[in-house]
């Protein structure tokens, strides 16, 4: 019989989850390894019911992935079809998922959701980005010009693969 644990969302809703799915969260995995099986529910005051549902859905779908932990490491790799559909949610939900994945320490989900937001930023102008995310421009025109001048046309070397010493 598969071991199960009980999780409680911020509103007090209870979720019964198989142990191997809960273990996708490093936070829960370590907690359960330390404490062992507990009869009481694990409270997750930072995660609402609807978001916890989505998180569990992700972990359940990927429960048998052998390469789960490094799944979305590569910034230039395409997002898989199921993951793409999974991320078709409104922006508020997407950000809540980022926060939940960070809190629960589920790296592949954090990487997936952050990559999704990054894809919404790509190939846009600053103004288009501001409109997409409802961000106020708090630069004065002078400040904006100065940042542009100082940062000009050069780029970050993180995409270069020619460096010898490439460890973190």
């Amino acid at each position: 019989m598969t071991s199960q644990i009980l999780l409680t969302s911020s509103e007090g809703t209870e979720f019964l989850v198989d142990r191997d799915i809960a273990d996708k969260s490093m936070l829960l995995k370590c907690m359960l390894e330390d404490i062992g099986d507990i009869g009481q529910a694990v409270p997750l005051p930072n995660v609402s019911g609807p978001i916890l549902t989505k998180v569990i859905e992700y972990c359940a779908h990927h429960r048998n992935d052998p390469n789960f932990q490094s799944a979305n490491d590569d910034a230039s790799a395409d997002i898989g079809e199921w993951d793409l559909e999974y991320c078709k949610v409104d922006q508020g939900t997407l950000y809540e998922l980022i926060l939940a994945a960070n809190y629960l320490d589920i790296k592949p989900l954090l990487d997936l959701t952050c990559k999704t937001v990054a894809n919404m930023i790509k190939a846009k102008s600053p103004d288009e980005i501001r409109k997409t995310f409802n961000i106020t421009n708090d630069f004065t025109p002078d400040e904006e010009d100065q940042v542009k001048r100082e940062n000009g046309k050069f780029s970050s070397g993180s995409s270069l693969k020619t460096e010898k010493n490439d460890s973190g």
Partner: protein
Amino acid sequence: MSPLTTTSILSPRSLRKRSLPTLPSELILHIFKFLTTPHDLRVAILVCKLWCTCGMDLLWSRPALLSSSVVEQITQTLSLEPSEMTFPYRDHVRRLNFSLVARDLVDEELVRFACCTRLERLILQGCTQITPDALLRILMAGQALVSLDLSEITTVGDSVIEQVATYCTKLHTLYIASCNAVTDSSISKLAQSCPSLKRV
């Protein structure tokens, strides 16, 4: 057998309104790590001040020295007076790889990077026009250097290695292929001064 049971009713109104600007900085930074083209990062820093601060370290920690004109532009920014700079750019620079501009790099350009006192990795492979005088200026600012590549700079001899021993005590890797003027005596001084040295 379903993996979960729930008594909640999914309702969009139960979600708090969460927006991108309210994410903590480290998560905004994590998002920026997935901006794969340099152009996108340069655009992102112009969106608002928070994004600018978050993106600045990514942009400047490892600036891509693709051509002499890019090097010129970077040094212009680094040479600004601290009071004129929007950000302390020089403090963000941690890796410099000059191998793509190696043949053209001259002393005057190199020494303008001597203000980057938090530099950890420096690659000068093939920079054959660089003289020991310019190297000294860089090394004097190199207290944080852990990795140094001086390969193919044939003017590098014992005096340069001794300066490395004096100033770069945190060094763990040194590349000196084709630096035929270097002898064992300076290498042993290096080994004595740099307790972390793993590879020469």
